C-alpha cells in the first residue's frame, strides 16, 4: 500500500492549501483528486479577496500559503475595497484570469516536491485503519487525512426544476465518499448555493454599460508580489430593471427554491436573483458587475444574477437588462445542493472529535467562498502534518486572526447558513488588519515550520525595519508651533509631542509626518502603514489590548476534552444540552455559546477552577 504522512482528498481551494502547508512543514503528502484539471478551479466568480475575505487572503499569505500569490499571478484587475473607510476595514480584491489561475496553482503544487498528486476517486476509508483510504486505484495509507470534498458530497444540480446529480457543472458527485462520511455518524445538514449564467462578452453592448477601471496603483493580495507591467482590464456595471423582476416573478414556481425542491438554506449575503426579487420587492433594480474571465477568453461573469431559473427564462430576462439585450449565454446559471458536516463536530484544529487523524476543511464544513475554504485548508494542513508527526495542534484564537475567528465560530457556534467572512465578525477588528497580518501570523508559522526560506528572510528584515521605525517615531518630536509653521492646524497648547503621538491626530497622516520629519521618508511603505495605523488607532488598540488580555485569560481556562457537562454541579438540563452541543474547549468558548446564562457560567467557572 502507498503510504504518506498526510493524505488530502480534493484539489479545490481547501485541498491545495492543505497539501501545500503540510508539505512545507516537511510532511510527505498525497493530494488525491479526480483530475489534475481540478486544481485551481474557481467554481463561481473569477475573483479573490474582498471585504473580510481580503483579510483571510493576507493571513494565508502570512503563513506562506498559495491563495494570494496565485491570485496575484493571475490578476487582471485590482481594487482595494473600503479605501476611504480606514485601514481596519480595507480589503484587497483581484479579478483573475481563470486559466492563468489554474496554471499558476498547478505550478505552485508542482513546485512542492513533497506533494504527490494522485488522480483517483476516493470511495471511502480503508477498513482497519482510521487514516487510510480506499480509492478507485487502490488503498493509500497515512498518519492523517484531510477531507476537502467541497460541494461534491451528495451534490445535486438544479436547472429550473430539472435535477441532476453533480458536485459542480460537468462533475459527478462524490456518492461513495458521502456514504463513507455518513457512516462516521457525524451530524450533517444540507445547504445550497448558486451561480449566474456565463455570457459571451462579444455579444454584450459595452457602450451601454458603465466601465469601472481597477486601481491605478494596485494593492496586491500577497506581500511577496512585485509590481508587474501587465495591462489591467476594466469591469462593467449594469442593473436589473422592473421588467427583469416581472419575468422572475412570473416564473418563480419554476425555480427549485420556490418550487419546493430545496431542503437547505442558501447564503443570505449572496442571494439568488429570485431571492432578491421576492425579499426586496420594493427595489427597482439591483447592480450587476460584469467581470471578464480572462485575457484571451471572451466569457463574462455577470456577478449579481445568480439564478436557477430554467435556461430559457434566463435568456429571456437578459433582454431586459441594459447592455445585455443581445447577450448570448455560454453556460446557464444553476444551483447546487450538497451535504455539509456540522462543524461543531470538529476541534479548533479542525480534527473530527473522537476520530483522531481525520480532518475536514472547506465548504464541507458549511462555509462558502474560496478564501474561507483556503483558510481552513492551511490550518487543517498544518495540524494534519503535526498530528502525523505526533506534535500538539496549533490553534489560532480570535485575537490573533480572522482565521481564528472563523474556526472558533464554526467549531463552537456551528452554522445555520453557508458561512462567509465579514469584518464585523471580528470583535478585535481594529487590531486585526491587512497591514499587520505578517506580524500577527508569520511568527506562529515560523514556530511550526510552515514558512519557506524566502519569506522567512523577508520577515526578519521586516521585523528589524519595524522595530527601527517604531523607535524613530517614539524619539522624534515636535511642538504645536512647529506644526503650525508647517501649515497644520492643531491646538496650540505648547506641549511638544512625539511623532507617534502626533500621528494619532486626524490632521497628521504619514505623508504629513514625512514633511515634518524628513528622517521618516526612508521608511518602507508597508512598515509605514503599520506604524501610522497603530498610532492612528492608538487609544483603541490599548483598550483592546486589555480586552484581549481578559479574553486570553478565559481562553487559558481549558475544559477537559470530552467533558461531561451533566456531571457539573449547578447546570440545568437545558444548559447541559447547549454546552454539550457546542462542546466548548475553553471557558472563553463557553462564554460565547448562545443562550448560556451567567448562572451556568458561574457554575462552570467554579468547576474549572476546582479541577485545576
Amino acid at each position, binding site marked *: 500500500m502507498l503510504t504518506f504522512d498526510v493524505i488530502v482528498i480534493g484539489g479545490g481551494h481547501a485541498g491545495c492549501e492543505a497539501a501545500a502547508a503540510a508539505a512545507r512543514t516537511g510532511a510527505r503528502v498525497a493530494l488525491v483528486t479526480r483530475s489534475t484539471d481540478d486544481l485551481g478551479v474557481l467554481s463561481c*466568480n473569477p475573483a479573490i479577496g*474582498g*471585504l*473580510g475575505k481580503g483579510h483571510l487572503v493576507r493571513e494565508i499569505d502570512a503563513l506562506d500559503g498559495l491563495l494570494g500569490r496565485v491570485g496575484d499571478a493571475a490578476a487582471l484587475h485590482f481594487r482595494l*475595497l*473600503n479605501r476611504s*473607510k*480606514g485601514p*481596519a*476595514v480595507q480589503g484587497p480584491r483581484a479579478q483573475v484570469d481563470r486559466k492563468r489561475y489554474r496554471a499558476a496553482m498547478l505550478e505552485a503544487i508542482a513546485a512542492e516536491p513533497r506533494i504527490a498528486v494522485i488522480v483517483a476517486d476516493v470511495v471511502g476509508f480503508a477498513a482497519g485503519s482510521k487514516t487510510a483510504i480506499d480509492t478507485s486505484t487502490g488503498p493509500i495509507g497515512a498518519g492523517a487525512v484531510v477531507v476537502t470534498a467541497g460541494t461534491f458530497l451528495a451534490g445535486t444540480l438544479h436547472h429550473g426544476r430539472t435535477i441532476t446529480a453533480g458536485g459542480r457543472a460537468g462533475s459527478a458527485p462524490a456518492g461513495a465518499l458521502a456514504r463513507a462520511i455518513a457512516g462516521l455518524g457525524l451530524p450533517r445538514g444540507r445547504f445550497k448555493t448558486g451561480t449566474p449564467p456565463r455570457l459571451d462578452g462579444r455579444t454584450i453592448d459595452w457602450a451601454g454599460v458603465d466601465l469601472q477601471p481597477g486601481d491605478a496603483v494596485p494593492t496586491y493580495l500577497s506581500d511577496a508580489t512585485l509590481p508587474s507591467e501587465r495591462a489591467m482590464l476594466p469591469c462593467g456595471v449594469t*442593473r436589473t430593471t422592473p421588467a427583469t423582476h416581472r419575468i422572475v416573478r412570473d416564473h418563480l414556481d419554476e425555480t427549485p427554491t420556490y418550487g419546493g425542491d430545496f431542503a437547505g438554506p442558501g447564503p*443570505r*449575503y*449572496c*442571494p439568488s436573483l429570485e431571492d*432578491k426579487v421576492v*425579499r*426586496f420587492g420594493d*427595489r427597482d*433594480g*439591483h*447592480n450587476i*458587475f460584469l467581470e471578464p474571465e480572462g485575457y484571451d477568453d471572451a466569457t463574462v461573469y455577470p*456577478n*449579481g444574477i445568480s439564478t436557477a431559473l430554467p435556461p430559457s427564462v434566463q435568456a429571456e430576462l437578459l433582454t431586459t437588462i441594459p447592455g445585455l439585450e443581445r447577450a448570448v449565454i455560454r453556460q446557464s446559471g444553476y444551483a447546487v445542493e450538497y451535504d455539509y458536516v456540522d462543524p461543531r463536530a470538529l476541534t479548533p484544529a479542525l480534527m473530527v472529535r473522537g476520530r483522531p487523524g481525520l480532518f475536514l476543511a472547506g465548504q464541507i464544513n458549511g462555509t462558502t467562498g474560496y478564501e474561507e475554504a483556503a483558510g481552513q485548508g492551511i490550518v487543517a494542513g498544518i495540524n494534519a502534518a503535526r498530528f502525523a508527526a505526533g506534535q500538539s495542534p496549533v490553534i489560532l484564537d480570535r485575537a490573533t486572526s480572522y482565521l481564528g475567528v472563523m474556526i472558533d*465560530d464554526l467549531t463552537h*457556534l456551528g452554522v445555520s447558513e453557508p458561512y462567509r467572512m*465579514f*469584518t*464585523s*465578525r471580528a*470583535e478585535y*477588528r*481594529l487590531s486585526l488588519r491587512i497591514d499587520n497580518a505578517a506580524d500577527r501570523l508569520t511568527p506562529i508559522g515560523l514556530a511550526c515550520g510552515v514558512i519557506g526560506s524566502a519569506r522567512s528572510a523577508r520577515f526578519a528584515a521586516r521585523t528589524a525595519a519595524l522595530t527601527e521605525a517604531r523607535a524613530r517615531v517614539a524619539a522624534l518630536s515636535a511642538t504645536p508651533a512647529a506644526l503650525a509653521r508647517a501649515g497644520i492646524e492643531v491646538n496650540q497648547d505648547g506641549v511638544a509631542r512625539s511623532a507617534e503621538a502626533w500621528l494619532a491626530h486626524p490632521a497628521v497622516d504619514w505623508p504629513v509626518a514625512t514633511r515634518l520629519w524628513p528622517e521618516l521618508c526612508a521608511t518602507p511603505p508597508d512598515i509605514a502603514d503599520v506604524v501610522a495605523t497603530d498610532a492612528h*488607532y492608538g487609544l*483603541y488598540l490599548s*483598550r483592546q489590548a486589555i480586552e484581549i488580555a481578559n479574553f486570553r485569560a478565559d481562553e487559558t481556562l481549558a475544559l477537559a476534552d470530552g467533558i461531561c457537562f*451533566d*456531571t*457539573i*454541579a*449547578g*447546570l*440545568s*438540563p*437545558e*444548559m*447541559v444540552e447547549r454546552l454539550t452541543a457546542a462542546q466548548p474547549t475553553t471557558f472563553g468558548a463557553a462564554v*460565547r455559546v*448562545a443562550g448560556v*446564562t*451567567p*448562572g*451556568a457560567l*458561574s*457554575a462552570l467557572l467554579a468547576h474549572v477552577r476546582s479541577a485545576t
Partner: protein
Amino acid sequence: MAPGDLQRDANQSRLTPTIFALATGAPPTAIAIVRISGPATLALLTRLTGRALPPPRRLSRRTLRDPTTDDAIDTALVAVFPAPASVTGDDVAELHLHGGLAVVAAALAMLRRAGAIPAAAGAFTRRAFDNGKLDLGQVEALADLIAAETDGQRRAALGRTGTELAHHVDRWRTVLTDIRADIEATLDFAEDDDVAARPFDVADERLCALAGELRTIRAQTERGGRLRDGVTVAIVGPVNAGKSTLLNALARRDVALVSPLPGTTRDAIEVRVDLGGVLVTIVDTAGVRDTSDVLEVAGIRRGQLRAEQADIVVALGSTAFPNAIHVVSKSDRTSEGAGWRGGALHLSATTGDGIDLLESHLAARVSELTALGEPAFIAAQWQQAALDGAIASIETAQHISVAALVAEELRRTSLELERLIGRVSSATLLDHVFARFCIGK
C-alpha cells in the same frame, strides 16, 4: 423521557444538594414556613407525609411524620412547586407548620436526618441564579428588597426585581443592534448599491434618543442610590449648642426610629429615621472646640468629614456653613417662640416647639434630592459603572466621523449593556443586517 435524560437527572440529583430553611422569623410565630428546594424535594415530601404528592401549587393538609421513628410531628399545610416553575427553578416544597419552638425544631431536625442540607445564606437565590431564574441585577435587587427598611427603598428594589431594568436594557440592546447593523452594513457591504444608498449619520436620531434615555436612567440610579443608602443629614455646631438635644428631638418624634447606632461621645452619633419613605441618617457630629486630647481631635476630624459628605447640613448656632439650614435653638428661653426669622429657624429642642417646622423643611429637601414620585432605580456599583461606560462610549461615538471607530465605540456600548444583563453575539448583529438589507457581493 429519553434514557439519557434519566441518566442526566440522576447525575443532577447527585450533584445538586437539596436545601431547606425556615422562611419566616424566629419562632414562636403563628405559622412557620419551611422551604425546601432541590432534586430530592418531591421524594422527601412523599416520605414525610407517607402519601402521594398533593397537586402542584395548592395547599393541602398533611400529617408530617419522622420517617425514622414514625412519630407525628405536626399537621401542616404543604405545597409543592415542581421544577422549573418555582422560585429557584428546582423542585420546591413549602411546609406551613404551627409555629411553636418545639414543632419547628423537630421539623428542621427531621429534614436534616432525611438528607437535606440547611441552606447557607443566599443559597436559594443562588440556585435561582444558577437556573437562570434571576439575572445578577435581580439577585442584587432581591438582597436590597430583603434589607429594605423604608417604603421608598422597597418600591425601588421591587422595580428592579421585576423585569423593569431588564426590560429597558432589552429595548436598548435592540435599538443599539439596529444602529450597529446599519454601520456594519456600510463597512461590510461597501460595494452594494442598496446599502450605499443609506450612509450612516452620527446625528442619527435613534442614537441621540438612546443616549438621552441612558442619561435619564443614570439620573434615576443616582436617586435610587439615595433611596437605598439613604440621605445623610449632619448636625454641626459648637459644643453645647444643643446638637444632641436636637437629634433626640428629631428621633423622638413620631417618625419611625429605625435604629440608633451607638457611637462614642467623642465621635458622631447617628440615628436613622424614616422621613416620608426615605431613610434619613441624622449625624450628630462632635462639637468643635479647642482641645489637645488626641482621641477627641480625631473624633472631631471624623465629624467634620461626615459633615462634608452629608447631603444636608443643619448648622446649630454657627454661621460657618453657607449652604446649611441655620437653626437657632433654645428658643424657649426667649419670648418670641418658634419660627423662621432672619434666614434661620428658631426652635426649642427641649420643648419640641418648632421641631415640626424643621422636620417638614428636611422632608422637602430630602424629597427634592430623591425626587420621590419620579422613577428610581437602585443599581449596584458595577451596574452604575456599566451605565457610565455605556454613556461615555455613546457620547464619544457621536463626536467621531470615522465609521470603523463609531462601530468600535458602539461595540463598547453593547459590551457595557451586556454587563448589565445578558449579551449579544456578532451573529445576532448579522441577523439584523440581513433582515433589513438586500446584500449583494
